[in-house]
């Protein structure tokens, strides 16, 4: 395996008493699209700002291509950032904005102009090159901001929730633009967002942060299918989380007694002793729903409470034993032959492989 582009080793960032990032260990590889995701205050933006040199770590080491970066000033780095507010200079035209970084590097006027126009053309906004940025639309500004960073030909592009100000249709389009760009250029994108759909749609790897800690790192699919802990299971997607005690088990599955019944879950890598308290998660789209008892390993009865349509997808909310709320996500047409009147009692079923045990935290 090649050496990572960026390494975080036990990095900590404090603001007074507040710990924004705690003991972070993370490698960022060359050419990957990495998303850092979490709710506000989780430390994702602080992590990005440390990469740009806008904040210095309180402890630990950040290295880029082996070089210690802790005290390297922002203007001495090659880490252009696309800002949430875009931060285009309002007193400059689109082209002058794109030229700014090249000018700071001492690139000559003619060369600057050629490269700026080249990038504006590539972003399909060459027609607006001489316009003041204040007169551009949201999507056009977005493209200017991207061009302004990419014209610097960096090894790594930092993006801080760049799509959060756009309307939903434009977000989807810009996601396409971004993933295509990243693949074409082959450079590393580090993308900070609070949006799961953005992170999962674009990233090769996702880092989920919670209160300054990394809760899980993995591919979108890994995180979605096997959340490492309760925080991730609750944060990502629609998971049903059940808690109980370990009865026993082998390599094929663990038996867990819960107030909703005794279920079999996937055996985790670190073995669990009988009697231990444990939680496991089952993704809402891995549950089946039927009027008769299913022949799956795990089954439970529940009462239908309500349903929620998102186009062709439907989420059903059911109440099981002990007040447990189950969420089931299905295609609308798969529900045709079920009695879905509120209060109807239905069977839920799922495989042992769909139930992943969560570590504490």
């Amino acid at each position: 395996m090649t050496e990572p582009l960026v390494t975080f080793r036990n990095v900590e960032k404090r603001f007074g008493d507040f710990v924004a990032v705690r003991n972070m260990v993370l490698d960022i590889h060359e050419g990957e699209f990495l998303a850092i995701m979490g709710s506000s205050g989780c430390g994702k933006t602080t992590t990005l700002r440390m990469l740009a040199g806008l904040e210095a770590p309180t402890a630990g080491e950040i290295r880029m291509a082996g070089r210690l970066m802790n005290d390297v000033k922002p203007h001495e780095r090659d880490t252009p950032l696309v800002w949430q507010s875009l931060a285009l200079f309002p007193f400059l035209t689109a082209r002058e904005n794109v030229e700014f970084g090249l000018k700071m590097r001492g690139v000559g006027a003619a060369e600057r102009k050629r490269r700026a126009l080249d990038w504006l053309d590539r972003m399909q906004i060459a027609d607006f090159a001489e316009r003041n940025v204040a007169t551009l639309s949201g999507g056009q500004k977005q493209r200017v901001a991207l061009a302004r960073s990419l014209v610097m030909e960096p090894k790594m592009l930092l993006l801080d929730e760049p799509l959060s100000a756009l309307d939903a249709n434009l977000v989807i389009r810009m996601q396409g633009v971004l993933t295509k760009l990243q693949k074409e250029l082959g450079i590393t994108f580090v993308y900070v967002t609070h949006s799961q759909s953005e992170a999962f749609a674009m990233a090769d790897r996702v880092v989920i942060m919670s209160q300054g800690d990394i809760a899980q790192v993995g591919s979108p699919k890994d995180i979605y299918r096997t959340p490492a802990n309760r925080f991730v299971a609750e944060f990502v997607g629609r998971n049903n989380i059940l808690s109980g005690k370990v009865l026993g088990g082998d390599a094929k599955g663990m038996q867990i007694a819960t107030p909703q019944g005794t279920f079999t879950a996937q055996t985790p890598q670190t073995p669990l002793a009988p009697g231990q308290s444990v939680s496991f998660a089952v993704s809402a789209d891995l549950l089946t729903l039927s009027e008769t008892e299913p022949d799956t390993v795990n089954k439970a009865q529940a009462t239908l409470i309500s349903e929620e349509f998102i186009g062709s997808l439907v989420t059903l909310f059911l109440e099981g034993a002990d007040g447990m709320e189950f969420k089931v996500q299905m295609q609308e047409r798969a529900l045709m032959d079920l009695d879905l009147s509120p209060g109807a009692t239905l069977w839920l079923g799922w495989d042992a492989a769909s139930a992943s045990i969560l570590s504490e935290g």
Partner: protein
Amino acid sequence: MSTKHKIDLYALTWRLPIILWQLIFFVGPVVFMIAISFFVVKNYRMTEAFEFVNWQRMLTRGYFWDSYWYTLFIASLSAAIAMMLAFPAAWALAFRASENLRRGAVFLLIIPFFTSYLVRTFSWYVILAESGVLNAMLGYVGLGPFKMLNTHFGTVVGYLTLTLPLAVILQTVTMANIDKTLVEAARNLGCKPLATIWRVVLPLSKTGFVVTALFCFILAFGDFVAPFYLGGSQEPTLPILILDTTKSGQQWPRAAVVAIMMMLTLFAVAFTAIMLAYRKPKVAR
């Protein structure tokens, strides 16, 4: 719609006080002053007339133009000095100070306005006099004494007493409202810390700074106290010329000419400055 052309009595009632105020205390006096400038003085008494003799007398005299250019020059110079002296302090307050420190500093900067400008001017006597505090201190290091009272330097010090606190406050407020992200964005694109002042801070502060400089200029241009008490009025500024003209032979009409020239100058300067400050960004080619 027909209602558009009707006079809205309700709105007019509320607007009336300000309209009356402007008519009585601004438009009225200005019209009166313009009228006076065409009057003539006979036997030390002002007589109604419509003659251009005052305009002719003042505008063809070397001493008027000497005074005019001197006032324009020294008021501009002191405005420029005020802007430059204020900048480091305002920059530090806007970018380095905490919100609380900034608030406290702005409050402290307002305190000078609690005391009379005249009193503050007189206090400079103690400091600037031949045997004053400053010369005594310079004496310890083997310098001076310098003549500081009754010089151009004295005039500028007086003007700065008037304008510097205001310049710091206005500059601070201007820069505190800048989006700090833009400064960080410049750093992120390779701009050195000091260069961000030229590249980002000043372009973003243009409107506020032009207005601040305009204020400093207007205050200095019309000030009579500093050039009179600290400048010694050897080189009379226009306000001192007005005073002298009215005292010598009751020449109110000629003083009116000077005053109108001052007003026209301020109008021209203010108009140019505002045009400059609010110039629209270019929209298309």
